[in-house]
């Protein structure tokens, strides 16, 4: 299963959340690849805490691979090479978690036919090797989005299942932008159809993840005034209506990640330890991530809306 992580804007927590989903899947025993196609600003090294392992991969990353400069992209075994003390102790029965880093300083680039073929080669090989492959795409209608749309429409990939997760924050602008990314004329669906995708099938393979959503019920806000609570409730309602009007309502939402300081500030994986021992992360956040990770492959959540 290939999972493409997209977002219209930066700062939606796309990278950190999709990395956490990859981590959660690996904990359940799946072999997971995390592919950093965020060419503008590769952040995966920080999220998985592998800065040391990144040294020496600057010219062997995905960028160099797609441009044909190296035959195989660098891979980093997260359990083995992370500097995060908790991740180092790879849990028993967990699957492999392998990061395919981008190049340091590799910007966006136009795709030619040969890079597209190489992209297909890579995705096919990863699909043969890993249970789940999470592909983190640069924000917006980027070359990375174009490339994987073209790749997945290619006859060689006709038998490879894929799904899209579109991350957005829970604000007016972000809701409208996320809807535009998917539904606008040259959005993911429009662009996909241009490249040979079936409209309905592609639509059915896209779900949304609302990130950094303040939960009015959360104890975090219980200190607020009644007026504040009522106002939050009303805003939340209005946003739901807005989302529904823009065709990204609850029926196409795979999950909601609460507003979580650790995701916003530290941009790291949330471990059980963070919740239980040091209590710097909220239990609800971890549960939300576990649930979304589970739903990734649960067909009940991928029926036609």
């Amino acid at each position, binding site marked *: 299963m290939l999972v493409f992580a997209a977002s219209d804007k930066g700062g939606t927590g796309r990278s950190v959340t999709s990395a956490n989903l990859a981590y959660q899947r690996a904990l359940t025993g799946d072999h997971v690849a995390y592919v950093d196609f965020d060419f503008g600003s590769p952040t995966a090294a920080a999220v998985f805490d592998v800065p040391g392992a990144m040294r020496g991969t600057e010219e062997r990353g995905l960028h160099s691979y797609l441009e044909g400069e190296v035959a195989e992209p660098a891979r980093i075994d997260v359990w083995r090479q992370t500097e995060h003390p908790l991740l180092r102790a790879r849990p028993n029965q967990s699957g492999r978690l392998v990061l395919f880093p981008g190049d340091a300083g590799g910007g966006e680039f136009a795709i030619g036919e040969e890079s597209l073929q190489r992209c297909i080669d890579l995705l*096919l090989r990863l699909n043969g*090797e890993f249970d789940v492959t999470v592909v983190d795409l640069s924000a917006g209608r980027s070359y990375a989005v174009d490339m994987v749309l073209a790749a997945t429409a290619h006859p060689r990939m006709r038998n490879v299942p894929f799904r899209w997760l579109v991350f957005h924050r829970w604000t007016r602008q972000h809701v409208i932008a996320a809807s535009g990314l998917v539904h606008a004329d040259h959005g993911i669906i429009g662009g996909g159809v241009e490249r040979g995708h079936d409209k309905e099938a592609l639509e059915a393979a896209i779900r949304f993840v609302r990130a950094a959503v303040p939960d009015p019920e959360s104890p975090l806000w219980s200190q607020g005034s009644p007026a504040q609570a009522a106002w939050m409730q009303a805003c939340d309602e209005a946003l739901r209506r807005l989302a529904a009007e823009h065709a990204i309502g609850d029926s196409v939402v795979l999950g909601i990640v609460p507003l979580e300081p650790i995701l916003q500030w530290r941009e790291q994986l949330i471990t059980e330890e963070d919740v239980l021992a040091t209590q710097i992360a909220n239990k609800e956040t971890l549960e939300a991530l576990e649930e979304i990770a589970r739903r990734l492959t649960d067909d009940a959540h991928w029926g036609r809306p």
Partner: protein
Amino acid sequence: MAPRESTRTPRAVLACGEIRTCLLPARQALDIRAAAQLLALRADERALTSERPGLYARSSDTLTGVDCPLPSANGARVRAVGTVAARAALTEGRVLQTSARFHLPATGPDRRRPWGEYLVRPGVVEPLGKLPHEAVAQGVLGGGRTGDLDAGLIAEGLLTRLLRHPLLDQRPPFRSRPTRLRWAALPAAPGEGFRLERFTLAEDELRTVRLRVPEDTPAAGLAALCEDLALHDWLLTTVVRMLDGVRLGTGAARDTGAVVRTLRPAVDHLLHLWMPRARVSPELAALWDPLEERPGFTRQWRTLVQRIRDQLTLHAIPTPHQEVEPVP
């Protein structure tokens, strides 16, 4: 009259190569005709096929011209020119291997010759000057620097080309990892025979093999031996990982289907492939012996096969034992 220096075939003091082994990404194994079609790398030559003792197809050699430094463990920069031979093989229509190899004479001319003179000696790479063969062998096995001669790149290129073939539907029957095997064969002491000096599992998917062989042992035969080792090592690795992924015991008893689903591909696609030495020349076949003794490839394989059969038998029986198991 003695042959001119430039055309005499020099004696090889080092042969090396690299092999990639992976599962063919196709739902059904290829039959022998389809296999020959996949491996028809050159229009003028057909793939070699055989059906005894198992289905096997092998492409003819393709040549890649090289002119680059050799990897070396002591930092010596020796430039070498010549051709690397590569071929692909498919076992039982299921396991795909690509293999690149070259051999090197002890010395070469100080300057590059006309290209035609290299082309007449396929698979020979000639050093400019003297070859520090021990250091180069170590360099090859340890992996060189970017830009050094790398048989692995050539094997990888051939593999990529084959995996794009329209015959493949890209639906592998199970998840598996490709392996890489690097090998180097150094000359044995005078009077000594063939010897397997070392077989190592480095990193996760890299294996290295170091051999001692009498001078002038053909590199193609050595490559065939190493392809055989790589195939069987891949089988062991793959089946071990498959069993690793199965959660056994009481906790897993709730989902017996999962065990059968995980192990079934081994029965369908792999268990009948074990046939060490089948494609190895008789004098090289003895190189398998140390591996059979320790760690004991075939012994481990038999144990794995037995475990798989036992698990499948267990799960074929309705499970009354669940009722008497103590509740934790």
